[in-house]
């Protein structure tokens, strides 16, 4: 199933994983595993993502102040670290999302495809 999809996986561009995590966390606090699952559930299953790489990204954003983290108890009654978006993180999300769309449109125009926005 998922293995089949991954045979056609594409490499995730630099910075995209952070943008995805910020987007997921915009809906509320989650622990790392739940963030990974949400990214997959949102259709990124075809992206070649090593789930472990999510954690250094989360820690970097925590250090930047985009995320706040605290230890809590998971649904399985296990100690888990929950991340939530800070005001700085929301601002960063808006900037990164905007930048991503500009890059994406520019690349699409160069490639001769109509941009999703323009379509």
């Amino acid at each position, binding site marked *: 199933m998922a293995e089949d999809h991954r045979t056609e996986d594409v490499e995730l561009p630099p910075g995209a994983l952070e943008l995805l995590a910020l987007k997921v966390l915009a809906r509320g606090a989650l622990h790392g595993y739940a963030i990974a699952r949400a990214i997959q559930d949102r259709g990124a299953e075809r992206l070649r993502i*090593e789930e*472990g*790489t999510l954690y250094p990204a989360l820690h970097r954003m925590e250090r930047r102040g985009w995320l706040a983290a605290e230890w809590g108890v998971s649904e399985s009654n296990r*100690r888990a*670290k929950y991340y939530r978006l800070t005001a700085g993180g929301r601002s960063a999300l808006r900037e990164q999302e905007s930048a991503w769309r500009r890059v994406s449109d520019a690349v699409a125009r160069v490639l001769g495809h109509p941009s999703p926005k323009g379509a």
Partner: protein
Amino acid sequence: MAAFLERLGLFPRAPDPRPLGAIAADIEDELAFHLEASTRALIEEGLEDEAARAEALRRFGDVDRIRRECARTLMGERIVLQRIQFVLTAALLAAVVFLVLASRETNARAAVERERSLALLAQIEARLVQGEARLVEERRHAASEPALQPPPVIDRLPVLGQSAEESPAGAYLAANGTRTDLGTARESWSEAFNEQHGSWRHGLRIAERLAALSGSQGAEILVQVWNELSVEHREQVMKPFVFDGGHPHALEVLELGFEDSVHSVRERAVLYLQTYAWQDLWQGDGQGDRWLAQWRDRPVGEVLRENAERWARAYAECAQEREQIAGGRVEHLLEGIEHVRPETLAKAGVDLRGILVEAGVCAIAPARLGGLPAAQRAIAERVRSWCQP
């Protein structure tokens, strides 16, 4: 320091202050939770435990690499900070050590300079003290010396029959004052002499008073203080004793001068002794010592008279032997009394004229002096003058 660096903008947030071990344990726990949850979900999807575990690990990626990246992200700043702290501490320690060493070297140099300055100051102070003492001494002399006026021209000593005040030296002393209340303590006289140890006039002044003491006191004190007197004073102190022909201890005083270690003092003593011995008695040939040994215990009057009589007889004999008084012996006799002072004999009660008359000296015709050299003839003429009533 982390907060300080954060304020400087070197760090977006202050590093996690917890121990590194606690941070590493959290990383381990967080990754383990992910693997457990992923494995559990895969099992729920139908995979066997081992397969689910393996699939979870595969999806996760290289756990060790992820763990290192997480540690670097969360603890890297702490490590960097620790390194900075270590470097700063080492630099601070090195600076302290350098400052201590530099300070010690500076202190050592300063101590040497201080010692050198103190030594220099001590030298300057010693020179100032010496200069001040010299100035005080000069002022003291200047205060006392001006009273010694006019410049002392004492061409002859107190003469017989005159008081000290009547003689040139006595008049000088009377005019300038002297100490009279020194008593008989040796220390007082020694101190009095040495008040102006370089002034022969001062020495003579004190000696006049010393000789005026009753009995043998003056001579006894002089014997005691002799070695404490300056050369200038030793040359002078004999005079009041010697030329005062009545002084009972004149020969003892002369003996002091005769045995003095300084030539000039001995020379004076020999000169003065001539008045008593009526002959040259230089110490070198032992005649002076023998003469003093023979006469020192005799009364001064007898010494003067007997020696004058002996000379007069010898001189008269020479005159009778030849038509003109000439030749080595008579010249020697005349040279032997060159410094004789008839006043000394008169003071001692000796009738010099009577001695000369009795010996026939006064009967020698003046024409017989013609063959003598000028110096001896002058002495012979002086002898003739002693024959005058």
